[in-house]
């Protein structure tokens, strides 16, 4: 018998990350740099919301969780398990793109590691999301290369965005104090430390191809807290806006 609480903690943080970054990235809709990119970025944001819904649904079906909509829109800020990285406002396009690049590479290694998870209901989703994430990475990698080779200004912005994002991105891999070892022992997933190492192996070749300089990882202080329920001041306003329509009538059917 697998430890249900541990699995719930894993799925909740994954779902919350996807939900929040999906909402954030959707804020670019109508404001993207050009129409094609606007549509591409919005479409990928929708994929993220889809991932969140699927994970919440797995919890409902297999772990006695709530209805996915209720779980997404009715929880208090303190109960959210998203990392700080995904909560930050969209800022300028360099930041949003760099976040998209770093976050989606982290998702890619995470879902790959879940293809053979001991928690079997998750396996089909890990495989199903593979194609979508592969496409997200194609988009992200190409933009990082394009802008790093664009002009002096675009290169400087990408380099600056990378340094700004790194401590936050490392926060994706914050371990759960209560459940991390259980999840590893029960072969649910290989653990945050292993994923972080794989993630670095993935982003490094793209960054070096782009000519961006990534200092040694030990020089950054990871931004933790989100997985324990401590969030940035940006999360509550986002939750208010995201759930404003839902809360008009939480029992409505759509």
């Amino acid at each position, binding site marked *: 018998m697998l430890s249900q609480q541990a699995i719930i903690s894993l799925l909740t943080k994954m779902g919350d990350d996807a939900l929040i970054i999906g909402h954030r990235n959707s804020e670019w809709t109508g404001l993207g740099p*050009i129409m094609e990119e606007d*549509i591409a970025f919005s479409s990928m944001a929708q994929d993220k919301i889809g991932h969140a819904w699927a994970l919440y649904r797995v919890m409902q079906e297999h772990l006695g969780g709530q209805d996915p909509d209720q779980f997404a829109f009715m929880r208090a800020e303190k109960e959210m398990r998203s990392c700080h990285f995904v909560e930050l406002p969209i800022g300028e396009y360099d930041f949003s793109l760099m976040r998209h690049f770093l976050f989606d590479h982290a998702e890619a290694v995470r879902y790959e590691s879940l293809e053979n998870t001991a928690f079997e209901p998750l396996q089909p989703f890990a495989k199903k999301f593979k194609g979508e994430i592969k496409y997200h990475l194609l988009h992200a990698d190409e933009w990082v290369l394009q802008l790093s080779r664009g002009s002096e200004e675009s290169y400087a912005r990408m380099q600056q965005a990378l340094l700004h994002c790194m401590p936050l991105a490392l926060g994706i891999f914050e371990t759960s104090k209560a459940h991390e070892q259980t999840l590893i022992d029960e072969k649910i997933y290989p653990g945050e430390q292993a994923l972080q190492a794989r993630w670095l192996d993935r982003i490094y070749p793209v960054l070096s191809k782009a000519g961006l300089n990534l200092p040694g990882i030990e020089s950054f202080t990871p931004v933790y807290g989100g997985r324990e329920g401590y969030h940035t001041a940006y999360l509550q306003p986002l939750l208010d806006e995201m759930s404003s329509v839902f809360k008009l009538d939480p029992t409505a059917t759509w």
Partner: protein
Amino acid sequence: MLNESLDPRVNRLKLGHEGEVVTIVEGENWNAYEVFHQEKRGAHHEHVGSVQAPSAELALVFAKEQFARRKRCVNLWVVRSADILAFDVEDEDMFATNLEKTYRDASGFKVMEKINKFKGKK
């Protein structure tokens, strides 16, 4: 006065007065790419439209969003519009007499008559 559009993308172009000469900085303008869509493996790639992009790779990304998001698709081609060689519009007269050359139509051969004649002999 600048062009006042509700679309931020138009405003970002910093268009000047009407009639003012616009100078294009190298690398500022993107290329147009023609998009060809393949519905199933082995089928022809069919031309479906075009996208603007800074590189062929991003043209593929944009093409996927514009032309392969809803309907079935297994592959896409993109090719720089400038790399397509086409006839000039005024050379249309080269094709003008095609319709008169009915002897080139496969339907011009009246084989059924011969077949029936052959069958009748038996």
